[in-house]
């Protein structure tokens, strides 16, 4: 190591310059010189004190600066550029992540929306079909037909005709005597003192509640030679009342078809 040639080591390399009191004495050990000078203040010591104090001051200041929270304050340009580059690439990566996650979120959202729409569609269809199949209660405008049969002459045929006329007129839900819901599969049978609809014995007076266009429905029953005339021929009487709100409350459970199957893909 050639450190002894450096300017700082001038004290070393210029022994002739140092004509201090220490050098004139017999060459004592370093420890002894230190001990002696510790209690003998001199001009040189004052100078050293000033410079050492300056150094201590600078060290404390620098340590304080370094300990401050602003980590970028003391950096030079190249280091700042490096730090900036690092931050930029980090933020680019974060932005990429954000856009990826947003795309995923949108995808999931649209999928959820599609599913919700399909579900809503299916629910609507279930309600619509439920009205027709008689599995849900229904309400709406329609007519209330009251058939009186004081002599018991009314036969099943007249009643069936009436239901058929209603069906032709586009009825959507029928209920008889608040006890039987009439649907596509409903059966009508004769009974001793009345009729049996789907196995439920009904007696006159028959109250048929039908939901549909009130004018169309009542027209379908009242034409010449139609249901009303027919009942009157059998010495019965019919009164038809149009209403804004008919309540069909009787429901029935849907039975699964045993033989028919839906054609897939329709």
């Amino acid at each position, binding site marked *: *190591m050639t*450190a002894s040639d*450096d*300017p*700082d*080591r*001038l*004290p*070393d390399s*210029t*022994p002739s*310059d*140092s004509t*201090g009191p*220490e*050098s004139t004495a017999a*060459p*004592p*050990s*370093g*420890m002894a*010189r*230190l001990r002696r*000078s*510790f*209690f003998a*203040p001199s*001009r*040189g*010591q*004052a*100078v*050293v*004190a*000033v*410079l*050492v*104090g*300056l*150094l*201590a*001051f*600078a*060290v*404390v*200041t*620098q340590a*304080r*600066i*370094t300990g401050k929270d602003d980590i970028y*304050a*003391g950096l*030079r*340009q*190249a*280091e700042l550029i490096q730090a900036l580059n690092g931050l930029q690439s980090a933020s680019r990566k974060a932005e990429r992540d954000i856009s990826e996650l947003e795309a995923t979120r949108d995808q999931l959202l649209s999928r959820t929306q599609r599913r919700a729409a399909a579900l809503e569609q299916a629910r609507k269809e279930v309600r619509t079909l439920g009205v027709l199949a008689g599995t849900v209660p229904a309400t709406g405008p329609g007519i209330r037909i009251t058939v009186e049969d004081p002599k018991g002459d009314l036969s099943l045929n007249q009643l069936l005709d009436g239901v058929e006329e209603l069906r032709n007129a586009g009825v959507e839900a029928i209920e008889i005597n608040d006890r039987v819901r009439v649907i596509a599969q409903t059966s009508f049978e004769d009974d001793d003192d009345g009729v049996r609809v789907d196995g439920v014995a009904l007696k006159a007076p028959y109250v048929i509640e039908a939901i549909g266009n009130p004018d169309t429905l009542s027209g379908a029953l009242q034409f010449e030679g139609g249901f009303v005339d027919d009942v009157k021929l059998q010495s019965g009487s019919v009164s038809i009342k149009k209403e804004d709100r008919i309540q069909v409350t009787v429901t029935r459970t849907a039975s699964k078809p045993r033989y028919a199957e839906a054609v897939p893909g329709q």
Partner: protein
Amino acid sequence: MIAIIGLVVGVVLGLVLTPDVPLAMEPYLPIAVVAALDAVFGAFRAFLDGIFDDKVFVISFISNVLIAAVIVFLGDKLGVGAQLSTGVVVVLGIRIFSNVAAIRRHLFHA
């Protein structure tokens, strides 16, 4: 003893005054501190060798600090400031170690 008093006074002043270093000087202060440390250790070694001279010490102290600052300044201008200041710190560190080794030999004969 006066030197030790000076050290204590410097530390206390630094803690009490909490001076703000000008932004332009900020990169040079740590290097200057290391250079001054080197000068102080060199002076202590010279003192133990019996060849200490206060004039030489003052000159070496100041020139050490100035040269270190100039080297870092030049390095900043040339675009190698970070590397050059690292180099300066390494060189000064090696010198401090060798000086301290000599001091140790003087004081403890080991």
